């Protein structure tokens, strides 16, 4: 899959508490409502500036902290086509893929806020259209690529009746 959109830039160590603050958890039965506060404490204007297909681009260790899958779900509901980071906290990494959101590991120092990007998920390549730089991405493990290509873990299960690791 090839994804196109604009970069919304964040720093290192963006925690799940910053993505979905605990104080909004009374909205957790209403995920579209919860999604209106996505990343609010890191960038109050994120949701306002987000266009469908745009990318969340962060530094290292994105999504550290809680296992709350709400963090991956609200990013999906905010319209993000993918999340790009230098590294991901492991639970968020699985959650994103399980929700069908590509989590791309690459050198995000080569991307500035507002840059136009083209992401080739299977090939593992990010093209910064604004600067012309092509950034290699770390390939996903086969098991995760299978889940992502099926559109998420539930869809993967419906199709394969279990995990497909090869």
């Amino acid at each position, binding site marked *: 899959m090839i994804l196109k959109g604009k970069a919304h830039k964040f720093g290192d160590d963006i925690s799940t508490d910053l993505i979905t603050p605990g104080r909004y958890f009374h909205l957790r039965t209403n995920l579209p409502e919860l999604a209106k506060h996505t990343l609010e404490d890191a960038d109050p204007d994120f949701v306002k500036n987000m266009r469908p297909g745009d990318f969340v681009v962060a530094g290292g260790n994105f999504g550290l902290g809680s*296992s709350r*899958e709400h963090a991956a779900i609200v990013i999906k509901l905010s319209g993000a086509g993918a999340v790009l980071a230098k590294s991901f906290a492991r639970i968020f990494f699985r959650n994103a893929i399980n929700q069908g959101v590509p989590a791309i590991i690459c050198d995000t120092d080569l991307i500035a806020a507002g840059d136009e990007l083209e992401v080739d998920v299977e090939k593992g390549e990010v093209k910064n259209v604004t600067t012309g730089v092509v950034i290699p991405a770390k390939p996903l493990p086969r098991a995760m690529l299978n889940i992502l290509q099926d559109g998420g*873990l*539930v869809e993967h299960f419906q199709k394969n009746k279990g995990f497909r690791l090869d």
Partner: protein
Amino acid sequence: MSSTITEKILAAHAGQKTVKPNDLLEIDVDVVLSNDVTAPIAITEFRRVGVKTVFDKDKVVMVADHYVPGKDVKSAEQAKFMREFAEEQDLTNYFDVGCGGVEHALLPEKGLIKPGDAVIGADSHTCTYGALGAFATGMGSTDIAAAMATGKIWVKVPASLKFVYNGRPGRWVYGKDLMLAAIGRVGVDGALYKAMEFTGEAIDEMSVDQRLSMTNMAIEAGAKNGIMAPNQATLDYVRSRTDAPFTVYASDADAAYEEVFEFDAGEIEPLVAFPHLPSNVRPISQVGTVPINQVVIGSCTNGRLEDMRVAAEVLRGHKAAKNVRLIVIPATQEVYRAAMKEGLFDVFLDANAAVSTPTCGPCLGGHMGVLAAGERAVATTNRNFVGRMGHKESEVYLANPAVAAASAILGRIGGPDEI
């Protein structure tokens, strides 16, 4: 081939003789855990998978602990959703208000975790159970839904990092401090995707409560799991709580580690993690003057009986400073009763503490002690991220129960030696 304890447990659960780091495995799991925050999504996804019943009603465990007793109508509805599923599936191990407590203190108490087990939970602190010699890791709700349906999950075998603690910790230094020292050394992503294995004299001689408080925070260094070979105290603890058979694993002497970190436990002071990362640690002697508004003693990190005893030892005969709200939360019904019977509640109440029923409550900014803008808390919990305990302009300082209790008396961050 020589293996680490983590590799041995994963191999056994994948039906393989040996495994190596980065292998992708499908493993059988012994416990699949979720709570009132994560179970509702897991249940919804479980139904979408199209399976009618959970794979084993004894092994799917659900605990109401985060927003209980019902914080508000929405929380009550979430808990009800989980409760009705537990009833429908006739889950053997469903723990509601009054029968349970904070999940990661509760499951070991109930004898549900054994050495050699493979445990997954929809809570990041599921890694706690590694202190009992189990492989345990946190995952999201959809992974848990898949495991609830099949009893299986895929994992990538982690490389192992070894943390060796030589010598014995000094006065007022606990497992919490040894763990903060490790997180301070490697950083909040220093063990990303990896296993943190803890060994050495200090670990071998450590109580079960303190061991659990260490592995609890493995996720705070980004680790997949934290693990310790069971010591005698651990084996005695498990055998007193379950009759079920289990296998004890330990790493081979020549097992391969990606890196080894050594500590002299006797040199470690009580540590305080300053905002806004658990890796931002300073020795108690170097904290300076930091006035505080609240102290929370509890949580899956430090809400066990030994923690209550340590806090009471410091608080006995003292009162919390006038400007400090002291909140004590025994992590489970069992801890609550034991603390009460030992007279610890008298000590807490004499110190003007509010003693709460078991709940995760303030640790995640849920309820029972949420902070206002500009307020500071010392907490025995595990995270001090921006907004963790309430307003995004509030601050959380992580410490052991002795430091937390002393800070309550002093009205600023300080150690028990000052009392």
